[in-house]
């Protein structure tokens, strides 16, 4: 009897029999008719449920019940305060499905208004427009009261005060500076009306070369170095078709513009210049030498800046061998790299990197 008892104890403590003992306990303790015992089964099931909870990604993260995304998602609120600003708002203004090739090819937004008639520039595109339904895609850009950060929060609306330092609003009262040609506007019939402080207002009949939708350049005071503008800023023609913005140079070359944000775009021209369209309708052209010229919404030059020599710009240096920094109209700046890529830094601190192909970009952390 004692021997048998001791033998049983020895068996229990034998490593080879421990697993058999555990198996016996699991399958027989409380089990009626096979399988595992209910207590063992429920315990294992609860344990398995814990395991499952840990494998749930977003939902678990949000519920705080074992986030599959780990601390990164579970502590999202805290993490947010440690992170740089979120990426630029959505740019899919066309409302279509983005291509699924992993790269982002952005349909550019409508171009800034080019009101060459001298009237009040139209307002910016309605950020909420294009959101077809609640079940559809989220609006392409955040609504004004959206909690999302506004990327160009300091850009005034096009109908509001214009951030043009040295010219009055196109439709506002015109100051008199002496014998200067202050304004020209294209009339619907193709004629051109010129306003001069020292003379009467004159109207030039339309010609074959002056289509009604284009106005001759009217250099504003303080913009002596502005290049001639036959149809738009700097002689460029900026058109929109099917949600795509294109820039046509005076020699007829057409360059597709890249959307860089709500109502903003950029285009790298063949001559090395870089055109930046701003949300308020103004345009900035950065020459290869680093000098910049700003244009208002009517396509009129409003000011220029010499090359920033400290940043690497210089006169007579068309082919870039180093990056050139140029300020933009809205208070930000662009950096043109020798490889053709351009960094656009917005006034709110966000920045994007536009590839040389002009159709791919990504945010700069």
């Amino acid at each position, binding site marked *: 009897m004692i021997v048998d008892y001791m033998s049983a104890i020895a068996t229990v403590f034998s490593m080879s029999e421990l697993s058999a003992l555990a198996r016996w306990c699991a399958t027989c303790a409380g089990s009626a008719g096979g399988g595992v015992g209910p207590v063992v089964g429920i315990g294992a099931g609860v344990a398995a449920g814990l395991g499952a909870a840990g494998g749930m990604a977003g939902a678990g993260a949000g*519920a705080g*019940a074992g986030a599959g995304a780990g601390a990164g998602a579970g502590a999202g609120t805290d993490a947010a305060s440690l992170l740089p600003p979120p990426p630029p708002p959505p740019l899919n203004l066309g409302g279509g499905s983005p291509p699924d090739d992993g790269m982002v090819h952005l349909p550019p937004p409508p171009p800034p208004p080019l009101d060459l008639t001298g009237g009040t520039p139209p307002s910016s595109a309605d950020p909420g427009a294009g959101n077809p339904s609640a079940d559809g895609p989220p609006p392409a850009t955040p609504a004004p009261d959206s909690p999302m950060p506004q990327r160009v929060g300091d850009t005034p609306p096009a109908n509001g005060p214009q951030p043009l330092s040295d010219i009055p609003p196109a439709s506002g009262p015109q100051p008199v500076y002496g014998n200067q040609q202050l304004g020209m506007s294209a009339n619907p019939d193709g004629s051109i009306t010129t306003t001069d402080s020292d003379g009467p207002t004159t109207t030039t009949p339309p010609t074959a070369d002056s289509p009604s939708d284009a106005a001759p350049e009217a250099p504003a005071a303080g913009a002596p170095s502005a290049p001639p503008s036959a149809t738009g800023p700097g002689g460029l023609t900026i058109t929109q078709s099917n949600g795509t913005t294109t820039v046509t140079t005076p020699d007829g070359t057409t360059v597709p513009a890249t959307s860089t944000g709500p109502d903003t775009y950029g285009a790298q021209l063949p001559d090395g210049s870089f055109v930046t369209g701003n949300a308020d309708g103004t345009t900035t052209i950065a020459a290869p030498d680093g000098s910049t010229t700003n244009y208002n919404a009517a396509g009129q030059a409003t000011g220029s800046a010499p090359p920033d020599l400290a940043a690497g710009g210089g006169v007579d240096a068309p082919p870039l061998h180093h990056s050139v920094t140029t300020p933009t109209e809205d208070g930000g700046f662009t950096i043109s790299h020798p490889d053709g890529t351009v960094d656009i830094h917005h006034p709110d601190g966000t920045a994007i990197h536009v590839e040389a192909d002009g159709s791919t970009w990504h945010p700069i952390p």
Partner: protein
Amino acid sequence: MPSRKLFLPSGLQLLSWVGLAIALATLAYTAPKLIEEGGGAGVVFGNLAQYSWTIALLLVAFTWTRTIGVRALIGAALGGFFGVSSLAVLIGKPFVERLGAQSVFVMTVFAPVTEELLKLLPVALFLLLAMRSRQFRPSIADAVLFGTTVACGMSMYENILYARGTDGGWLANLPFSPALPFLHMQGSMLVGGHVVYTALASLGLAVTILYGARVPLARYAFPVTLAVAIFEHMTVDRLVLIGSDELGWFARLSLLITLGGYLSTLLLVAGIAAVAVFETRLMRRGGAALPASLTMRDIIAGLRQSSRWASALQLQKRLRYESLRRSSILAVAQTAQSAPDASAMASVQRLYRSAQMTSGAAA
């Protein structure tokens, strides 16, 4: 206390891994005896192959919409295998002992109702926990996948107890059997079994919980699908109870209402197709404000690390990023927001950078 908050998910993750390890250890210990009781390795692994096949097909169908991973599914399968089965036995035991195993009430009312509700319990817990968040939400596909896996686990266990196979086959009940090989006939009725019934009820439950607040019609999804599942389960059990004798009016009426047992399978297949299309469209349209989605190119690129461990780590990070990205899109759709809120976007952005994704950016 940011440090405490940051520590908390890690602690839960550790607990989750420990739980999974306990369940797997229990399976390892009990497997030899269960295989022996279940009719041998051929029968048990045959069942396993059929259930795994359906889960694999669901994973493919929900490739673009699911947010849960393999770990959640393993936990669900083990939870169904051990937890739900044992709970059903424990709850039913007093009634069986008092009324007998062949009691009409136990067979056609008590067992179908309790089993269907118990199988839905893990899915309901999963969805209700997820509903606490407005930033990250699961998809309907997740719930269907989760519920299906729980039911597969329970069905496996039940078949072991009865030492039986599924009585189905890949070509036994066309056209559905290639995808649902466990389908079989009980007399003139097509039997979907635990898997079809729970998958359908899970789908309805997810539609109601996730979209019921936005779409009034969605609130009826769960009652309807649960009624269909329970009613078919009751009908099957009734047919088993009466054997090949005269069916009686109840069985005949049940067969008429359930279209000979095809109703649940038809609803499930149609529901899965609709959910896959609907949520895939959500994913394609709703990611405009977020970084680019994970592509096959990213996965392949992530595998080209210096070591296998580094590759696995990179892959895990990228899959985790994609899951969170999808969850944020789903949250927008389910809560009628216009876009993911700032903290959700920040979390997704953080994982995007952590995963060192190279393609695309904010779209």
